[in-house]
């Protein structure tokens, strides 16, 4: 065991940091400074800048435009981007369907889709959940039948299709067979959002920002070539992808940034003439939060080191989503507490509260979703109890 980071990796970290400072456009930097909510077009703009540098997809192989970095460097790159508060890149193409296509796609599918994912020319969204298939995803009902020409014809509804209003493509789990075991009749399809019969209805989140959508499919015709993996084999692909989403949600870098913001608020807020950061109680509450974050960081490092040596994810990776989602919420809960009366603010004109506080109430509300999406924490606990602790099922 060894905690040290090589001088080469330290140098890489400095290089990344310097590049971000230079490459991040001034208007995005200003928003990053106060952790404002980034709109999708801003994320796409930033992805294009990253892509020019070869850093849009740290985990992709060089064959598909990735930087060919070792796992530690990839982690450093990701962490530095998060710590700098740069616009988060939409994960649906880069982290989800992209890697999935590399593993399961045909040569033609890879050639057609991967270059435009990494270059941000095409935006993706995810069609998994349905109104009656949330935690129990396998009960999904969106139907795909075949027409005379062999095309799939899709009818049904997907929900929580985040950023569907911006998406060019959606990857969907659909039911190609309603007989037999529910997991076995599911297929994985790529659908062009411009196909007639698709309707997108954006919804506001509890944080007052547009992110979620409902997406309706009425006789949507999809070429048979857009099937990924075997027909009826979609559940295996879905599981591979969900496992990946769960580690993403640990958001260690983003939480590190949130803890930094909590400290800044404590430094800049005065209570009866004293800085909050000078209050021993406030200090110990921030310390307790930061210690929870460090615990999470170590779990993340252990999972990463395992991955670096080609090992399957160990038990520590299963706790990342569980604890990571809670730490994210706790960062914003504490920020709200420290803001005092200012925590009452909601989308007011600039100047009502200090800029660093403006987005906290919205994020505080929105991050209630972190313990729900990507498999609710209750489901995560069921999985851990069964598969890691080996507890008997019913």
């Amino acid at each position, binding site marked *: 065991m060894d905690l040290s980071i090589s001088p080469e990796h330290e140098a890489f970290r400095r290089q990344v940091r310097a590049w971000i400072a230079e490459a991040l456009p001034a208007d995005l930097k200003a928003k990053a400074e106060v952790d404002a909510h980034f709109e999708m077009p801003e994320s796409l703009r930033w992805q294009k800048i990253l892509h020019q540098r070869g850093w849009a997809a740290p985990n992709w192989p060089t064959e598909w435009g990735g930087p060919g970095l070792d796992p530690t460097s990839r982690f450093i790159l990701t962490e530095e981007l998060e710590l700098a508060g740069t616009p988060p890149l939409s994960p649906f193409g880069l982290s989800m369907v992209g890697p999935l296509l590399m593993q399961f796609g045909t040569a033609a599918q890879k050639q057609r889709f991967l270059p435009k994912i990494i270059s941000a020319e095409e935006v993706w969204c995810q069609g998994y*959940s349905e109104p*009656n298939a*949330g*935690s*129990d995803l396998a*009960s999904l009902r969106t139907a795909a039948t075949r027409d005379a020409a062999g095309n799939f014809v899709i009818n049904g509804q997907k*929900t*929580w299709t985040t950023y569907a209003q911006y998406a060019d493509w959606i990857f969907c789990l659909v039911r190609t067979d309603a007989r037999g075991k529910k997991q076995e009749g599911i297929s994985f399809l790529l659908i062009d959002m411009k196909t007639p019969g698709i309707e997108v209805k954006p*919804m*506001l*989140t*509890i944080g*007052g920002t547009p992110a*979620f959508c409902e997406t309706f499919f009425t006789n949507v015709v999809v070429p048979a070539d857009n099937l990924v993996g075997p027909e009826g084999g979609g559940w295996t692909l879905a599981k591979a992808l969900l496992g990946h989403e769960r580690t993403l949600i640990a958001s260690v870098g983003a939480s590190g940034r949130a803890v930094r913001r909590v400290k800044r608020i404590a430094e800049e*807020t*005065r*209570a*009866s*003439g004293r800085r909050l950061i000078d209050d021993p*109680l406030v200090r110990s509450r921030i310390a307790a939060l930061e210690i929870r974050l460090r615990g999470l960081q170590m779990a993340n490092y252990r999972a990463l080191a395992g991955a670096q040596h080609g090992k399957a994810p160990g038990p520590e990776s299963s706790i990342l989503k569980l604890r990571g989602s809670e730490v994210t919420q706790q960062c914003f809960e504490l920020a*709200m*507490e420290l803001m*005092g*009366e*200012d*925590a*009452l*603010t*909601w*989308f*007011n004109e600039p100047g*009502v509260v200090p800029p660093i506080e403006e987005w906290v*109430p919205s994020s*505080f*509300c*929105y991050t*209630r*979703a972190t*313990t*729900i*999406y990507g498999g*609710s*924490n*209750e489901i995560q*606990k*069921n999985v851990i109890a069964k598969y890691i602790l080996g507890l008997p099922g019913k």
Partner: protein
Amino acid sequence: MRFDLSQDQKMLVDTAASFAKKSSPVARARRLRADPRGFEPAVWKQMAELGWLGLCFPEEVGGFAGRFIDLALVIEQLGATLVPEPILPAVVLGGTALAAGGNPEQRGRWLAPLAAGDLLVALAVWERGGRFDPTWCETRAEKSAKGWRLTGEKAWVPGGHAADLFLVAARTGGAPGEAAGVSLFAVDRAALTVEPVTTIDGRRAAMIRLASVDVAADRRIGGEGQGAELIARALETGCAGAAAEATGIAQAVLDMTLDYLKTREQFGALIGTFQALQHRSVEMFVETELLRGHSIEACLRIDEGEPEERSRAVAAAMVQVASGGRFVARQGIQLHGGIGCTDEHDVGLYFKRMQALSQMLGDEQHHLARFADLTQPARVAS
């Protein structure tokens, strides 16, 4: 001890519950989020006619001289559907200060129209940097030929966006942080600058500015330099009212969550059959009942017993709002899953109101510290 409702209280609760259900379902609160006033004067007038606004005011101003618990029972019922009319800011905060500190002339002049639904009063005591401590008052009142001249700023005045009359705390002596020297003045809206702000719960407050505002001598409420006690009294009554509203909210969240667990199916079963979710619901129920108990105690002690015991009960109730009340609201979202994280679902509206109630009249840390000061030996000054 007895905790059953009197015949009159039962009627009051029934009337308020039916009003909330029929005249102001949650959809109304949702719609009024987009309204700059955030409530409707006609409904406010209706509440006056029902006798709710003057429930605790003396009879000579048209009130019913009731106990605070009676008004709290109404507030709890209205909380269950998030009725947005400003009873808490105008009647409980503003009205209590006027009733407790106003002389007969002042009560007749302002309390009577408040009870009749014709005048909105706001309590403007907090300042930036004071963090829930109303004695952190930098606004100054200098003696002038006409009476007083006020200069300063007040932050997050609840209901201040629509108020006609502001009860402004200003220092006539002493230094920020000292209770002595704070005085309370009744200032007309026209005399000050009002900047309306939106709050997390979809309601409104105001930042106000006083630039050398002349205030007549007969507009000081209570004795010179004696305002802090009046303000404390108004804030404690406000906290008791907030605890009652939080109780109504917690009950509503619990009810809608139980309904969901009994109707939502996943994995071929009602999700209410899952033991993890059953236990969570039981915890929500326990916290709701504890909150109800704290709220009843605080509201009863507003009118009964010795002041320190009242202060202890109020601080304890507010800590339970912040801990138990927010637990119920957060778990309400969690058990609803994705739909609970949308603006379309009502549970989020309750969650945000609970959050506002837990921070607008002093947060958890503030009330913990108050409770500690009232129950533990005094700290040695450092």
